[in-house]
């Protein structure tokens, strides 16, 4: 399992390959990559700053992955979240889940993202033509996380 909060970019292909390297029991690798969009809530975005709570962030990501391991057959997982200054088109977040079968890999990957969005202590500040603004939490993200409680 790999958890990383970092300023540097990541390589999806390299991270997927790293999970499946040196073992042959993995049958499915599902991944999600989140990117910086150039527009949000009706305004153009020229750049974005990601702030986090060092220490708690890494712990909360590890806990989220542990919860996924408790629910699905997760053989290995990687979560990388970038912090600092990013621009449109840049990668923000990567989740990769390896499992024996696709169902568990897809579900665990979506679960980790939904929980990360609502529980991991990251905050986005966008730069718009009108100045900087902190991104508001979305109710749809809470709804997405709630569905896993059913």
């Amino acid at each position, binding site marked *: 399992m790999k958890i990383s909060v970092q300023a540097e970019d990541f390589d999806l292909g390299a991270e997927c390959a790293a999970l499946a390297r040196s073992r042959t029991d993995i049958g499915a690798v599902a991944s999600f990559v989140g990117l910086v969009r150039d527009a949000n809530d009706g305004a153009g975005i020229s750049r974005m700053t990601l702030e986090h*709570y060092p220490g708690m962030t890494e712990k909360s990501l590890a806990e989220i992955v542990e919860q996924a391991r408790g629910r699905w057959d997760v053989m290995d997982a990687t979560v990388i*979240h970038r912090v600092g200054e990013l621009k449109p088109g840049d990668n923000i*977040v990567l989740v990769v889940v390896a499992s024996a079968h696709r169902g568990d890999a897809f579900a665990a990957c979506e679960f980790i993202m939904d929980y990360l969005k609502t529980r991991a202590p990251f*905050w986005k500040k966008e730069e718009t033509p009108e100045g900087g603004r*902190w991104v508001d939490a979305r109710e749809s993200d809470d709804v997405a996380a709630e569905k896993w409680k059913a």
Partner: protein
Amino acid sequence: MVKVLYFAGLREAVGQSSEQLALPAEIGNVGQLHAHLAARGGAWEALARTKNLRIAVNQQMAAMDASIRDGDEVAFFPPVTGG
């Protein structure tokens, strides 16, 4: 002493990211600490104004009724927006 941390918009509003605070004897939980800090007035009223304020005690999400003691780390922040 407790370490109090502020993040994101709340950090900007109160003008600092952290402080060490000698815990007054009458403060035993997060809600009491929150009221104590907001009562400083001025910029500190942002603590009371922040919608859906989130709290962590020793880096675990917590509620206003969570107890706190000397040596704890208490963080106040707006709802998270990562991912």
